[in-house]
Structures are given as C-alpha cells and as structure tokens.
C-alpha cells in the first residue's frame, strides 16, 4: 500500500545518498539503482571491495567518484578475497585496540561475471572461512555488459549475447543459469537471499537482515540491464517485476538453512510475458519457450516445497 504514497517513501529509508548521481551508468540502469538501495541500507560504517565491472567503471573515472563510503576497486577475480582481508585487518586492529571496537561491515561487490565465473573461488573461500561482519552482494545483469554483452554462466538459457549468438544452429546461450544462491547456501552461512531493485523495500530489508545475521552473508540481486537485454530504457523496473512475477527469478531468503519465499505471488504469470519483449530472447520459438516454462515451473516448485517444509 505504502508504495502508492510516494511522499512517505523517503521517511522510511536512509536519506543519505552514498552512491550519488552523476555516475556514468547507461540510461535506465537498474544495477545502479540496486547499488543505491543497498548502500542506503548499509549506512556509513562499511568498506566496499568492488570487483571490476560496470559499477566500478561508471562510478570511478578519476578524478570523479560516485561513492560517499570507503571503497576500493580490486581485480576482477578477487572481491571475495580482498573483502576477506579487509574483515581480517579490521578485526585484528580492533583486537589490539588500535581502532575503536564497532561493527564495520566488509562488503564485497561484483557483477555476475566477477561472482559466478572468475571470482567464484575467492568468494567460496570467503564464505567457507565464516568471516564476521562480511557481506557479498552480486549484482547480476546476466552477462558481461561492461565489455560489450558477452555471455556469463549467469546468462539465462536462450539469451543471445555477442559470444553466444543466436542463429540457425544456435539458440544463443545453451546452458541454464548457474544457481549462485544455492551455491552460497551450500556453504552453510547464516544468511542468503535473492533480491531485485524493482522491490526496493524487500531489497533494503534483506541487506539489513544480512548484516544483522553477523555474516558471512550473500545477496544475489537481479539487476535489469536495458542495454544488454535489448529493452527500452524506461522498462527496467517493469522487467524486474516480471522476472519475479513469472517465477524466472524468485525472491527468497535462507536464514540459518531455512527457506522463506519473500514475494507474495499467488499465481505465476507465464514466462512468455517476461521473455517476449526482450531483444535477447526475440529468436525463441514456442517450443523453446515451453522448455523454459517447464524448467522455471520445476525450479519454482522446488523452492515452494522448501518454503513449505521450513515454515510448517
């Protein structure tokens, strides 16, 4: 309901803009929006280790910066490792009394390439070591958008990218999207959640929960990319909602191993609603869409049954 009364919204969230306007993201970028919401929820006592990617490039062309919080850019594959080092460094300085004792969250940030491909090893190490006050956020726009839309292991089945071109002999991306949240859950960490910038309150609530869980926590944020998905730039929010409403990207959280669905969707919309308007899926035939629908329904049912078994 409150969504309808825009005037109240600023009162419900942190007013500080720690990811400021003037950065160079494309028009309609939902990833920049996601970063903004995550930072609103995180507050000032954080250190961000940001892997190479869209958000790093658009936000830090020297001598300019969009970040109002401590921030370091690190190699593509090492956001998890550097964030681990930051957490360890802060811990030892507090233990030795060199800096005052307080909660400073070490935040690793990366895109889907930096998280699900090249940075998976470092992230897995960080989650396995159970760093306290450690949060990793993956901003998933489903391809290497920064370098010109190359496929990643997070690119959904059937999507055309420049290195998974669609044509007579190729459907485009021919493997299913890697289930990164499930990989994080397999590390037995206190908090894992999926989120989307089309659901800002849900996103911010999950960030706060992630921090309160003590860490390590993992957040997988679907970030609609109009440029790479080939959609009009004013429709990013709509496609984020469609991804959730069709079950393509279900919103859920896993707290201490317990699954809970967080979006209220009485009945899923057909995936066609989500796929049809996107240029990257325009080549899909009815048969292809049926295959995707079956897979989405199957995966969604799995989550529902986990939710039911965990919540009576």
């Amino acid at each position, binding site marked *: 309901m409150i969504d309808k009364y825009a005037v109240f919204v600023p009162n419900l969230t942190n007013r500080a803009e720690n990811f400021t306007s003037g950065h160079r993201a494309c028009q309609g970028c939902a990833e920049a929006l996601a970063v903004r919401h995550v930072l609103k929820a995180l507050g000032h006592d954080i250190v961000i280790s940001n892997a190479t990617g869209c958000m790093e490039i658009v936000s830090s062309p020297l001598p300019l910066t969009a970040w109002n919080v401590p921030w370091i850019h690190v190699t593509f594959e090492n956001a998890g490792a550097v964030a681990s080092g930051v957490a360890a460094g802060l811990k030892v300085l507090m233990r030795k009394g060199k800096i005052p004792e307080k909660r400073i969250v070490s935040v690793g940030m990366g895109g889907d390439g930096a998280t699900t*491909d090249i940075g998976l090893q470092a992230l897995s190490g960080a989650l396995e070591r159970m760093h306290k006050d450690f949060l990793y956020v993956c901003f998933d726009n489903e391809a290497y958008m920064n*370098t010109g839309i190359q496929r990643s292991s997070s690119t959904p089945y059937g999507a055309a990218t420049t*290195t998974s071109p669609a044509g007579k002999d*190729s459907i485009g991306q021919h493997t299913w999207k890697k289930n990164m949240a499930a990989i994080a859950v397999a590390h037995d960490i206190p908090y894992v959640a999926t989120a989307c910038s089309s659901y800002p309150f849900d996103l911010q609530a999950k960030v706060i929960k992630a921090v309160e869980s003590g860490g390590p926590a993992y957040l997988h944020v679907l970030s609609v990319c109009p440029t790479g998905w080939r959609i009009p730039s004013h429709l990013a929010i709509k496609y984020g909602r469609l991804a959730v409403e069709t079950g393509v990207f279900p919103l859920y959280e896993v707290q201490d191993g317990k699954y809970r669905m967080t979006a209220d969707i009485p009945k899923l919309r057909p995936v066609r609603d989500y796929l049809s308007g996107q240029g990257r899926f325009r080549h899909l035939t009815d048969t292809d869409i049926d295959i995707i629908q079956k897979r989405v329904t199957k995966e969604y049912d799995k989550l529902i049954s986990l939710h039911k078994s965990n919540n009576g």
Partner: protein
Amino acid sequence: MTKNKNKKLMRGNAVVGEAAIKAGCTCYFGYPITPQNQLPEYMSRRLVEVGGVFIQSESEISAINMALGASVAGARVMTSSSSPGISLKQEGISFLAGCELPCVIVNMARGGPGLGNISPAQSDYFQATRGGGHGDYRSLVYAPASCQELADLTMEAFDVADVYRNPVMILADGMIGQMMEPVTYDNYKPREIPPKDYILDGAKDRPSRIIKSLILNPHEMEEFNWKLARKYRIIEKNETKYEEFMMDDAKVAVIAYGTAARIAKGAVKRARNDGMRVGLIRPITLWPFPSEIIYRRAASVGLFFVFEMSAGQMVEDVRLALKGESEIYFYGRPGGIVPTPVEVQRLITRQYYQKGLI
C-alpha cells in the same frame, strides 16, 4: 599496387580470428576484456562454421589452461586477452613452455599497471619478451604494425609454435585490434611441421606418454633447461624479423615497433622531406630481438632514436644491442597516449640539429 580481389576490409581483432582459422586453428578459448572482445565474438560465430570449438571460459586462467589441454591433445589452439588478462595467463604460459607445447597467445595490450585503461600502449614489452611467467623460458613475440601483418604473422605463429613446440605471442594493442584495413590471407606459406609424436590421445597398442614440467632432480632439470636454451638459440638464429626503412644513408635511426613504428614511419618520411637523413628500424620479432642489425648500423648511424608508447622498455634491448657503440635518445609516451607523426618528427629534428648531423 596491383588490385587483389581477395582483399577484404576487416577489423584487426577479426583479422586475427580469420587468420587463425586459415592456419588451421580449431580451438579457441577466451574471456571478455576490452579491447580484444571482437576476437572471441568473431570466433564464437566463425569457428562453428568450420567445425571448430569456441569456449568462453570462466577466467583467463581457465582459458590458457584449456588451450594447454587442447594443445596436448594435438589441436591447433589460440587464446587471447589484453594486458591484465595476460598477467593471469602467465602461469599457464610458463607451463606451456615447460611442457614444450605449442600455443598462440594474442595480447591486445592496453595502458597499465593494474586495471589501467583501454587505450593503446606498449607497456607489456618486458612481460612478453622476458618470459612473463616464472622459470628460464622464452616465448617468441611478434609485433605486427598493420592489419595485413596481423594476418601474416598470426598464420606464421601457428607454424612456428608447432615447429619449435613453444608458446608464441602476438603483441599488438587496442589501436591495431580496433582499426580496419584491407587484408588478404594469400600470403600464407605453410611450413613443414614435424609429426606430433608427443600428443596424448589414448594409449591403446602403444606405450603411454607423459607430459610434465616437474623435474625434481636438479641435474635433470639443468639438462632440460640447457635443452630449452639450445632451442632458443636456434629460434634466435632462424626467426628474427625486422624491417629497415630508408636506412641506407641514415644518420639518425628511429627504432620503434607496432603502432609506434607506424607513427615513426610518418615522422621519418616528414624528416626526409625536410632533407634530413633519417631512417627506421622496426623489430617485427621482439624476442628474438634484432640486435645484430642494430649493432651493425652503429658504424654509420650517429644517433639511435628509440620511440615507444611506454616509459622505456625496448630501449633496454637497444642499449644491450649497441654495446655502448652509439648514443641513444629515448622518447616515450606511456599510459595510452598516441602521439602524432608531427610530434615525433619535431623531436627527431631537434636531436638531428643538436647532434650537428646536418
């Protein structure tokens, strides 16, 4: 110039891809990084048409090691990246050299260190020519200065890699990778390749083979290192390439490679128009370095003008080549700056007059 119907206008990165396919490359493994993305993109479409395999790996480390795997299976294989990605590949390149496996590695270099930028730079010279990875090894390094040369050298690189069982690197930059020029692939003269009697492809009805670079016994390791060193001496003798331009009566020799050499050539032409006796020596192989010709020129040349798009890397090889026989002036523009021929000519002219060569 006679008209060649087989000439096609192509972008540098795509030229490398097409040349590789013309040379029989069937496997390509890559990972996104600017400014070489058109190469994997081209390969993702084109390799399917010739029945090859394109895989976009999950990291540069995987890409180079997939290449190692394909190479040990006997396939002609290529991988490409740009500076930071090539840094990640170094362990794999060292293993290729240690296992004596052929592979072609393309570096469309950019400004550094760190993430640097995506502008053309020549700051990976040390990394490419000094091995880059660990251990006593060398990779042959080609430095093309045009799209046509990109085609010719890429095709030759596959043969050279197979003949010597050694990694070969193509070192260009974003400028050459991004620019479009007419190219023909007719210049390729395939070499005779020794039979690949080392590949791993199952061991039914024959003794199994082992490929490795772990040699714990230091005496054996030393012997292996000397064996590699002998191979590198042969490469130095047979594969050194360079171009001389207007060097016959030159008093000043400009030394530059790749993109810088193209700029330098323009500067040399302008200086010649002004009546100055200036020439250009352009190393085409950076390792092996054309030291001999540079040393020989010291007898007639008064000044060696080294121009690089770096803070000074190849200049050290020039210094070694000259053995103190002649003076060197260095002009460098690191960080992705591409100077104009006019700018370089102005500096050449100043040096020319200051040295009293007029």
